[in-house]
């Protein structure tokens, strides 16, 4: 079921089109990755979802109806550009921000206590924010983002400023929030974490959507049907039996085995290909080569940019 949907969003800033008919559909209780190079328009889209700015045209659907101003109580937003009042005490500030999200003072205090204990930050309560390290401040920020238990969470580059241990803790918390029923929009440049966390993604480049869908499907699509085979036989024997279904990209010997990378024709079956190997030697391993999100990102964006430049050259 769709939890949140933005259709044909257009937003212009003084002649510059920041978003050009972008559509995003976020299924309920999933983690949705919003990817794209710097300046692609991700932050603008996120601000529109948060009702910080209004789209010039397009619809924003929340809970199967058009979004209302009150819906921001059901959103938790951790912006990329984030900070806290430096001179204010941590506890006081967390209480203030939680109350702005609609919690009563008592409820806010109760929930904050729990979170501060969980993250072992109880001792920070009466410290000024400027006395905390950057990572500590980020933790406070994370807590005030989720404190009002919103249905939709938006994290813009949540891991910047965290050490690997804290990053892992944060990832676990995000997955836990999903388990508890939250829907999460997640914007980042850290592609391994996209592979790890995101169920679906949208890749925005130069204000337009260039890639959209379930993460696994996209990776396979971009795979170009590449496989890696490790077997005991000789490669030159193989090339003799080469059929038209596949092509050997490269090969080398390793620990007495041949290691072959080959690409399969799109409509060919990997089973047929394997069958042709069976005669040549003992197969040690066989696996599909799925590209990393990093490769997908670079390929998709570069392809798009090339097309744009070829269109522009007369």
């Amino acid at each position, binding site marked *: 079921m769709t939890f949140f949907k933005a259709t044909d969003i257009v937003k212009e800033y003084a002649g510059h089109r920041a978003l050009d008919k972008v559509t995003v559909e976020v299924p309920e209780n999933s983690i949705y990755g919003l990817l794209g190079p710097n300046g692609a328009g991700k932050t603008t889209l996120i601000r529109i979802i948060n*009702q910080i700015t209004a789209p010039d045209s397009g619809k924003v659907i929340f809970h199967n109806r058009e979004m209302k101003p009150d819906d921001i109580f059901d959103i938790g937003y*951790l*912006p990329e550009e984030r900070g806290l009042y430096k001179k204010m005490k941590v506890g006081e500030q967390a209480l203030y921000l939680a109350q702005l999200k609609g919690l009563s003072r008592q409820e806010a205090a109760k929930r904050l206590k729990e979170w501060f204990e969980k993250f072992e930050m109880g001792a920070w309560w009466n410290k000024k924010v400027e006395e905390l390290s950057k990572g500590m401040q980020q933790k406070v920020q994370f807590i005030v983002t989720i404190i009002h238990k919103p249905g939709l969470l938006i994290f813009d580059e949540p891991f910047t400023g965290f050490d690997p241990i804290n990053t892992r803790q944060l990832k676990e918390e995000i997955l836990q929030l999903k388990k508890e029923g939250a829907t999460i929009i997640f914007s980042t440049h850290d592609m391994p974490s996209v592979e790890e966390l995101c169920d679906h993604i949208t890749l925005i480049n130069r204000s337009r959507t260039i890639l959209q869908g379930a993460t696994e499907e996209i990776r396979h699509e971009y795979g170009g049907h590449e496989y890696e085979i490790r077997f005991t036989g000789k490669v030159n024997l193989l090339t003799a039996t080469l059929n038209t279904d596949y092509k050997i990209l490269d090969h080398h010997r390793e620990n007495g085995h041949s290691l072959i990378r080959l690409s399969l024709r799109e409509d060919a079956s990997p089973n047929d290909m394997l069958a042709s190997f069976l005669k040549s030697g003992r197969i040690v391993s066989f696996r599909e080569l799925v590209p990393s999100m990093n490769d997908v990102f670079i390929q998709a964006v570069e392809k798009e940019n090339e097309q744009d430049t070829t269109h522009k050259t007369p």
Partner: protein
Amino acid sequence: MNKIKLIIQREYLTRVKKKSFLIMTLLAPVLMAGMILVPALIMTSQGKEVKRIAVIENGSHLFEGKFHSTEYLKFDYLKDVRLEDLKQNFGDLGYYAILYISPKVGYMPDAVRLISHKQPSLEVTEYISTSIEKVIEREKLLTFNITNLDKILKTVETKIRLQTVLINDAGEEKETSTGVAMAIAYISGLLVYMLTFIFGAQVMRGVIEEKTNRIVEVLISSVKPFQLMMGKIIGIAMVGLTQFFLWIILTLVIIASVQGIVFHNNQNLQEKVQHSTELLSAPTGEAASVQFNEAEKIFQALGAVNWGLVLGAFVIYFLGGYLLYASLFAAVGSAVDNETDTQQFMIPITIPLLLALFIAMGAFQNPDSQLAFWCSFIPFTSPIVMMARIPFGIHAWELIVSVSLLILTFIGTTWVAAKIYRTGILMYGKKPTYKEMWKWLRFKHY
């Protein structure tokens, strides 16, 4: 609405809890009370130590025995002493000054010299010249051979103190003091200017702080930018009012206690002065008594001021002027990334404020001039200029028109400022031009 209350609360409490607020609150009344009390204290306490003055006359003995000593001034008429000799050591002999009178005194006004190491006070010089004038007048009158001259002189002696009285439309009269009205005009005009500037700049700094801390995006995902801006402006206005009322109360407390101590002592002084006046003929003690009355008169006049009107108008004009300018300060703060970039945008705000101050400084001397009149209606100058006119009395309609215009204008500037603000707070990097800010006015928002 609940959120705007939270914002106001935070803005108010964080500022009121600061040490600098406490220091300002305590220090300013001391300064203010000082400003009011010191002149009065100087007037009453001067000459507490006895000053001896040596009188030397060159040639004649016209003034022998003619100088009456007062409580704090003793005159020694020295015969057969040469000025040159005395000049060397009059300080060592315990004299404060030498009064040297040449025989030409009858027709040459500057034939009298008072030689001293320190600048003598106005009180001393006036007492001496009055005494000399009286003696010479008497001598001149004597040449007309009038009988009973002394008695006549005693009878004609008069003393005038001009009482200014204001009459209002209802025909009620009230004694006033131009000096007090001028002082109130000056102080309240200056105070509106200073408070608008101080607290307006605080709004600006607050906005810049939120922007550079990058907390602003966190905040406006929960509240509307307009709520955030207004919460800040109102919160700081309340800080301003709190400080102002604390100032008033503390100043009054200080004045009352000092007045109690000093003027209680003065009661004795006055009795003594009156006593000596009865015993001795004029002008003994006159100077001191006149001074005492002067200080008393100021307090009397202060009591006669319509404090309700002055304080009420002050609060209204401070709030109106502050709200008008604070929204502009907020817009400037939102447009820049740091305080050094504000210079260029501050100019259009600073100039009308400074202009208003200059006009107000003219208005307290000439409250009904054309310039002062018109500028007390123009909302960008009226808060300061009108405060400089009010103590002299204005018509009710003037106040109503001026305040209405001010309210309409601050609604307008707040509306414009809010539009610049909501775009500006999310813009980082390059300092915008006026042209870009003009475009921001037309961006679509919720």
